[in-house]
């Protein structure tokens, strides 16, 4: 991993820092990055990833100041992935996502990420905290979160809630028909002959060491 890593999303550019390096080194490489980038960031938004570090806010203030020196005022700069829950931060520490998350449209609201659109076969969405998906998750797609996962649509792919080991994590969907469902370290798959097309919202959670699925009562 380099000192700073950038990732494009439809919403903007995410900048991730490797906090193993000295803060002055990080600052310098961010400066030279902006120098090289020239007008590249015109009109796009920037997201600074906090990572698992419990950093002093002034650190980010300094990084913000560097960015503001180089960028026009139209460029928005945000912090993302603020970790305040030690338990679920495991996912970013040990199981650092290896797959590129395909996030078409992302809006960051605290520790929950909202993803709009269909997640198709071969696409993977991962987030250290809660995930809300406004759309279907097709068979062959993977959705993974350190916390809860809510799908406003049909969940037919592979889903893994509480991926860092959080057993209280839940999965809810308007139609819960995943290929496979995982919560924390438990794995389950729906019965083979389950062909019913009832469109009723269900949720899955761990109860007595087993994954239970039940209807959501309104």
């Amino acid at each position: 991993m380099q000192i700073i890593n950038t990732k494009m999303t439809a919403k903007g550019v995410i900048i991730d820092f490797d906090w193993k390096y000295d803060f002055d080194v990080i600052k310098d490489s961010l400066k030279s990055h902006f120098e090289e980038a020239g007008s590249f960031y015109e009109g796009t938004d920037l997201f600074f990833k906090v990572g698992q570090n419990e950093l002093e806010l002034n650190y980010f203030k300094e990084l913000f100041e560097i960015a503001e020196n180089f960028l026009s005022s139209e460029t928005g700069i945000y912090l993302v992935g603020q970790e305040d829950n030690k338990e679920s931060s495991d996912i970013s520490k040990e199981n650092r996502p290896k797959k590129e998350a395909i996030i078409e449209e992302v809006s960051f609201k605290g520790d929950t990420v909202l993803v709009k659109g269909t997640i198709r076969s071969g696409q993977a969405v991962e987030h250290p905290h809660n995930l809300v998906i406004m759309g279907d998750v097709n068979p062959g797609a993977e959705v993974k979160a350190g916390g809860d996962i809510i799908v406003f649509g049909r969940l037919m792919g592979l889903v893994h809630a509480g991926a860092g080991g959080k057993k209280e994590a839940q999965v809810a969907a308007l139609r819960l028909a995943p290929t496979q469902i995982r919560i924390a370290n438990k794995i389950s798959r729906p019965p083979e002959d389950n062909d019913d097309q009832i469109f009723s919202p269900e949720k899955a959670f761990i109860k007595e060491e087993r994954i239970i699925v039940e209807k959501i009562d309104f």
Partner: protein
Amino acid sequence: MEGKAIVITSGKGGVGKTTTTANLGTALAMLDKKVCLIDADIGLRNLDVVLGLENRIVYDLIDVVEGNCRLEQAMIKDKRNPNLFLLPAAQTRDKDAVSEEQMKNLINELKEKMDYVLVDSPAGIEQGFRNAIAGVDLGLIVATPEVSSVRDADRIIGLLEAEGLNDPQLLINRLRRDMVGRGDMMNIDDIVEILAVEVLGVIPEDENIVISTNKGEPIVLKDKTYSGKAFNNIAKRIEGQDIPLMTIEKESLFNKVKRIVGLS
């Protein structure tokens, strides 16, 4: 035990590589052989779906070569036949996630445990194809009786020979007796004349294949179907038995009735 590794490939897409892999694997397992199927189509995996094993995947081929799990952990035992195993492809990665060297090592490891290792190759001649043919002993080419498919098969045979995989065998898929009879479709001789390789078997066009694929149940489990029988015969030929090719000529109504009532 030193098993045999066979790659099922075609160049052209949609000619039935995955269906062939699933059915030959199941047929060989029914002959009491230990078989492992490898889905080398990373990023567009299908073999698990055709076998109805999609929901059992926890680890995949990439996890094995990257050392995230042991080989045995990634091998899924078939739900019908305990002799059959599947090593699934990763769906969220691409062909460059694995190298030819890694595939070679993997196949050598599997050959020690299995009688047969069947590798389902992706379409095309790029890295995915290179990975699929690494470390195998025999090339099995699937071609349909169409000019484009035969042309691609010819290209593939050349590429296999360049890799030292000589004498590949040919499997002609989706042959339609009625069309061959009318002279509207290439017949077996036409194809062999161009490709000059040994024909291992001929599979007739059969709508049951679509049904079986959609259900995730290989057609060889239904020996009554014509295509299921054809696949079972091919498996026996791979095992060295001398089974003649089934007659593909249009059968008379009388023979058809006889076959349906089970007299012939």
